């Protein structure tokens, strides 16, 4: 849960300007290095296009997706950096039965490997499909982008943001949003007039600027409402329902059993009266 963080202006955020991305994938390499993730065996064109590996996985926390399109009769590339969005109010944290996920005040949504029971609800809940599982292991855990929490706590920028030569800026969320708006205003012909992540899933710590429509690049269409509110509107009723059902059934059974008892007592009384009448008759 986001817990007691109320002001998301100061949480660290990634501003990723896809129009400035060159597709060098330095971020992918830096991510693997810092998180000590294994390389994956890959082949070209085994997925949708040039991108490699074919999907994010337990070994790949971030990935540049390629999309080729035509502009003025020329072939062009557009890119999309896939990674954990570090939501302000993360779905993974709300559904985790043991609270293994936490939104930190610094920005990243972090995962506690020691708590996780491996139910994979986070994977079902995440609207961006970020948490991945160690399918090869007998006792698997969840793997996802850490937002380089260990680096941030020590005053460094995340590994991908440090490696990126052009597209990623890292800083307080309010400043990043302001910067994004400034860029759109300064060069309206270059950008789509929308900031992805400003309101998506109730706001995220990763915000994007693009030239092409988001869905064409592979961004998922996501609700603007924080996801935990969808389940909480039902779950908040739990104590009330428990007391109502328990209370009304107790009352009901008290009444029905009392009625039964009274009926029995009445029967007994009439029977004993009959009995005594008979006795009287006998003595007479």
């Amino acid at each position, binding site marked *: 849960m986001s817990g007691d963080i109320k002001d998301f202006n100061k949480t660290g955020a990634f501003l990723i300007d896809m129009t400035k991305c060159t597709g060098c994938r330095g971020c992918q390499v830096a991510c693997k290095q810092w998180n000590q993730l294994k390389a994956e065996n890959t082949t070209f064109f085994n997925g949708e296009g040039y991108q490699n590996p074919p999907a994010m996985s337990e070994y790949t926390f971030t990935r540049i997706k390629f999309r080729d399109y035509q502009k003025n009769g020329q072939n062009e590339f557009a890119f999309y950096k896939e990674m954990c969005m570090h939501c302000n109010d993360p779905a993974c944290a709300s559904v985790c039965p043991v*609270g293994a996920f936490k939104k930190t005040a610094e920005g990243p949504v972090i995962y506690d490997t020691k708590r996780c*029971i491996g139910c994979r609800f986070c994977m*079902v809940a995440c609207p961006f499909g970020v948490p991945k599982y160690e399918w090869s292991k007998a006792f698997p855990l969840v793997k996802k982008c850490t937002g380089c929490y260990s680096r941030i706590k020590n005053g460094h920028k995340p590994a991908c943001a440090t490696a990126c030569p052009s597209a990623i800026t890292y800083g307080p969320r309010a400043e990043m949003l302001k910067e994004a708006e400034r860029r759109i205003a300064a060069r309206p012909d270059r950008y789509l007039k929308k900031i992805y992540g400003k309101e998506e899933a109730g706001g995220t710590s990763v915000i994007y600027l693009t030239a092409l429509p988001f869905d064409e690049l592979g961004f998922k269409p996501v609700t603007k409402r924080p996801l935990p509110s969808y*389940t909480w509107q*039902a779950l908040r009723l739990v104590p009330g*329902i428990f007391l109502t*059902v328990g209370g009304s059934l107790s009352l009901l059974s008290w009444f029905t*059993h009392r009625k039964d008892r009274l009926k029995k007592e009445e029967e007994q009384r009439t029977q004993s009266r009959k009995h005594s009448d008979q006795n009287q008759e006998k003595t007479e």
Partner: protein
Amino acid sequence: MTAARLIINEIKGYHRFLKFLMVLVGLGALASLVRFIFGLGVTTNLNDTYPWGLWVSFDVVTAVPLAAGAFTLGAITHCFHIKKLEPLVRPAIVTGFLGYSLVSVGLLLDLGQPQRCWHTMVFWNPHSPMFEVSMCIMAYTTVLFLEFLSPVCEKLGYYLPLRVLRTLEMPLVVAAAAISTLHQSSLGTFFLIAVDKLHSLWYNPLLPLLFWISAIFSGLSIIILEATMTHKWLGQEDESELLETLARIIPWVIGVYILVKAYALFFLSEGPFFDRPRMLVLFGIEVLAGVFVPFFMFMQKKVRNNNRLRAIAAGLVIFGLVVNRFNVSMYGMIHEGAPYVPSLLETLVTIGIIAAEILFFVLIAKYFPIFEHHPETVDYSLPDKFRKVEKHGSVAAGA
């Protein structure tokens, strides 16, 4: 003869069908062993796109409402005080207890870190429907176990616990209904988080309520089906008269379900209904064959009074429930790419769990008094261990 030989001889005397079930349970146990040695990835066809598969969809999301007979019938019999239904309660409790125990087994197999299942009791997260369901399942399995202890104590002649259980009976019935209401509905809350994933034919904010109502009428239908089968194959008493009473209650509950579902569908759902023909077909099967047909069948006296037709209608309700839970938890989830099909090992485990449910039910029915239950005949008085009182009421000679 040694104890082992006794047991082997006992098993040799079982019906062929029971031996077949034992083989299935054994196969399931072997398959689940594979999961612990080689991991979930090898055993199942699950992947990052389909993190939940057959084990969650059937062993948890479907099995829990199928075991709902115990709490519904308990509440109807004891709270609404329709006493004549009493003979149906014990088999329902046994089914429920077995069902929930096997749900726990299924859950433990599906968890990545089953040895940490106690974490839910230590690290509370009340915002998680999974936390709520796991707490409820633990609590309710305990309640069902206590209720199940009655026939066990009767069989073994433990009188003191019997008296304690007797005083606990009503509180347990009320607790069972309250706890079940919570977790049956919370299973629906699971899928409220899948906002942009679950198809709008099923996604609506009333999903928890719909899950609860459908659990009630499915629980009652399971009792009808089970009583008809135990009469036919286990040679137990014919309870048709009582089943008719149940069959009269069911259409009312289904009626409410239809109203709520229609309201949720037409007024609360967002997004298109007709964009995926496959979804429409699945929805059609679920609603027509699983809800409307049994609804109209149960409305007719002819069907309610006919053992065969009544069982068929109940079977259709169960079928509809299974399709509904699979639609919500598996088919209705919209994903690109190859669909998920359970692996052989996954299927073997689930078949083993179903076989175990039937096997244990038959065995318990064989050894414990769950059918011949007439509460008025049970002797709850403490036995006179010191022989102070003779059977005929006179004081013993030694005094």
